[in-house]
């Protein structure tokens, strides 16, 4: 078994780019990742994509000159890119392949005109439960319980849009007020449009290989994946809480850490404001019910005790589903190398990535991936 390191990362720009195809987006990400790693060949490729048409991985890679090596496509909803990373990591760790490319691709602007079309073979999606409505149910429940206030929900959006001011790859950024966030167009009560991630196109990639102690290597301390148990009337928490908590426990154990509070910077799945609040609680960064207060108090902002989503997160960087996990990984890699520019978390040495994919009724998430990384 080898210690595994991220040797290079790269991403495209994130945003609505209907005029650019998957090849162009992936080229930006793969070229940057290979250059960053100082290599020009890989032994295998794992590709994460959700709505990519059949064959999108090979069709894209052959245009980048990556042919004749094993290519595997994985789909785990929003966690597809992180699942590709997790599998690439395992392949290197066990010695199956020496150097592996993990790539996430998604072009959503040409697939959907607005919100993602609910999947008609899923009962609750067939019933009209678009993804914003699923998260709205959690937000409404938290409000009902007094576990969050509308202003605390909005604080997450204010924070992440402000973080993205320092991220030139982000789809959106801005200096918003809580009032502006709450006053923006209602999508699914109580979530307003500034509390929802946009429709995005993008790609992100990482090169993994055995750790050699190089000065720019970011070591993978531990990674874990879980798929959801039954989530229903007997579940103690809102949707997605338990799977994030349990996957985090697995990843921390693999990393030899006691708590998520031991890490210096995290990128989490904030497809909607309530998602970041629930996740910071489930990670154990803050106590249960304290996620909203932490966001409003600046605890999770750059300069706070536990900076969350310095990239701007999904809310601002954008959320090209299959690419998101590797975009999160790229951000943590830059943070741990001290290359994050105006959004750098000073002295960050340990980082954590969390991605949550969902949409299947009666499950507490299709998949959650959590990875812990350590800087050089």
């Amino acid at each position, binding site marked *: 078994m080898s210690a595994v390191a991220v040797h290079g990362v790269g991403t495209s720009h994130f945003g609505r780019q209907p005029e650019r195809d998957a090849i162009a987006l992936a080229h930006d990400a793969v070229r940057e990742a290979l250059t960053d790693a100082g290599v020009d060949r890989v032994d295998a490729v794992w590709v994460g994509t959700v709505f990519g048409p059949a064959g999108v991985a090979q069709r894209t890679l052959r245009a980048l000159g990556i042919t004749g090596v094993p290519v595997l496509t994985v789909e785990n909803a929003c966690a597809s890119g992180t699942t590709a990373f997790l599998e690439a990591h395992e392949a290197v760790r066990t010695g199956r392949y020496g150097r592996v490319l993990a790539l996430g691709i998604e072009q959503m602007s040409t697939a959907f005109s607005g919100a993602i079309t*609910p999947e008609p073979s899923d*009962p609750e999606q067939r*019933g009209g439960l678009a993804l914003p409505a699923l998260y709205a149910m959690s937000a409404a429940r938290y409000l009902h319980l007094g576990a969050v206030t509308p202003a605390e929900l909005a604080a997450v959006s204010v924070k992440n849009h402000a973080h993205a001011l320092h991220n030139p790859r982000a789809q959106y950024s801005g200096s918003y007020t809580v009032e502006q966030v709450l006053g923006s167009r*209602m999508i699914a009560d109580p979530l307003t449009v500034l509390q929802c991630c946009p429709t995005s196109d993008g790609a992100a990639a990482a090169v993994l290989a055995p750790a050699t102690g190089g000065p720019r290597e970011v070591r993978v301390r531990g990674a874990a994946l879980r798929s959801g148990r039954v989530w229903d009337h007997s579940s103690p928490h809102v949707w997605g809480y338990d799977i994030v908590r349990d996957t985090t426990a697995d990843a921390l154990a693999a990393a030899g850490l006691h708590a998520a509070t031991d890490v210096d910077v995290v990128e989490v799945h904030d497809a909607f404001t309530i998602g970041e609040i629930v996740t910071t609680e489930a990670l154990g960064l803050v106590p249960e019910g304290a996620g909203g207060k932490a966001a409003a108090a600046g605890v999770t902002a750059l300069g706070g005790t536990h900076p969350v989503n310095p990239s701007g997160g999904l809310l601002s960087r954008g959320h090209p589903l299959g690419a998101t996990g590797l975009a999160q990984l790229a951000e943590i890699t830059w943070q741990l190398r001290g290359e994050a520019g105006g959004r750098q978390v000073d002295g960050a040495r340990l980082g954590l990535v969390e991605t949550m994919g969902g949409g299947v009724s009666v499950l507490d998430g299709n998949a959650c991936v959590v990875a812990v990384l350590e800087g050089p």
Partner: protein
Amino acid sequence: MPHAIGADPRPRTRRSPDGRWRVAGLRCRACAEVAAYTWPVCPRCRGPVEPADFGPTGTVWSSTVVRIPVPGRTPPYALAYVDLDDGPRVLAHVVDAAEPATIGGRVRLTAPTADGDPRVEALA
């Protein structure tokens, strides 16, 4: 749509002889789990299941109003997760609700929507 819509996966509501609407689901004979679906085994423990009807009354666990266009739907429409009494949590549309249904409020199953969705009405 990328592919054809096959069998309807939604919970089936039907009118009992007493005139009340109920959801046809399952109960696990091993762990007593209940679900609003007629799946072959228990999703929690893989135990054997038997058919069971649930409803008509329940309590709103959470609710929202969807205000954006969703393919095949006309916004706005109100949704609620309803915990049926001694039964499963079901996603239901809410009759005549311009605002989200009151969480903790009591509701009753009624005839499905024209689109075939389970539906509830608030009890005064």
